């Protein structure tokens, strides 16, 4: 549901609910109850559903992910002025949409992947406000970063298929595609959100 429609619907429903407060006498007739049912049950449920959809959509934004204090440093690593940092290259070169940078690389593209990602996100929000917040350096992935996430975009691209680094051994590319060899193996693409490097690092000034 588009955002302006949700906002309008919520405002309209709130106004109608307040009108129902001052016209509570309508509840005596059957027709009045039907009207009150629409105003005090159907519309609020529609608003709640629309609001939930909107919040779920917002939860995929970089701004939302970085709104938790512990994530601030991870957001800063996207601005490293150094091409060896994989997330920084993806972010600065628009290889991922900047507004949804975190979600693009940290969502599971498999069946039910989005649901799994949202459940993880809910857990993060819970820990942020009701649990023990870890230090940025202690934040770890639930499981090793899956090749499938990289292959979701890179698979089939000429650069990915032909670059020398992917043919160091005869079967290297197939091993990567099958997941036997991780993209983030040592000496391949293992430089990611290195928050420990923030101190004294040079940053790209163009990032918003």
């Amino acid at each position, binding site marked *: 549901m588009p*955002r302006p429609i*949700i*906002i309008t619907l*919520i*405002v309209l*429903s*709130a106004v109608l*609910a*307040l009108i*129902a*407060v001052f016209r*509570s*006498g309508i*509840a*005596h*007739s*059957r027709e009045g*109850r039907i009207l*009150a*049912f629409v*105003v*005090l*049950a159907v519309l*609020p*449920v529609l*608003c*709640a559903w629309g*609001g*939930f959809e*909107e*919040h779920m959509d*917002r*939860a995929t*934004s970089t*701004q*939302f992910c970085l*709104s*938790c204090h512990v994530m601030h440093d991870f957001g800063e690593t996207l601005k490293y002025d150094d091409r060896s940092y994989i997330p920084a290259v993806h972010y600065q070169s628009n290889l991922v949409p900047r507004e949804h940078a975190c979600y693009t690389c940290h969502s599971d593209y498999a069946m039910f992947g989005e649901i799994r990602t949202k459940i993880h996100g809910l857990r*993060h*929000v819970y820990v*942020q*406000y009701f649990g023990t917040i870890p230090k940025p350096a202690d934040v770890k992935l639930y499981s090793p970063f899956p090749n499938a996430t990289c292959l979701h975009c890179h698979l089939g691209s000429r650069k990915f298929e032909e670059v020398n680094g992917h043919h160091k051994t005869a079967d290297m590319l197939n091993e990567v595609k099958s997941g036997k060899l991780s993209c983030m193996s040592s000496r391949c693409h293992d430089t990611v959100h290195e928050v420990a490097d923030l101190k004294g690092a040079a940053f790209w000034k163009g990032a918003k």
Partner: protein
Amino acid sequence: MTGVEKRVRRAGVIVATGLIIELLSLIPIHALAFIAFAAVGIPVIAAGVILFLLAVVSEPTAGDEAVR
């Protein structure tokens, strides 16, 4: 004011409060806004809707009385 009117009025106030909380939660893009929506807004709206439904099923309308 009859009992059903009081309950409908109360339900209206609660539903409107929940909707205003939902509206406010949609202003900032922040994890705390989601918490406000999910942990406060939704339960308040749900409480208002349930209160309204209980109010209307607990007391027959004038039409129902006439049928009896």
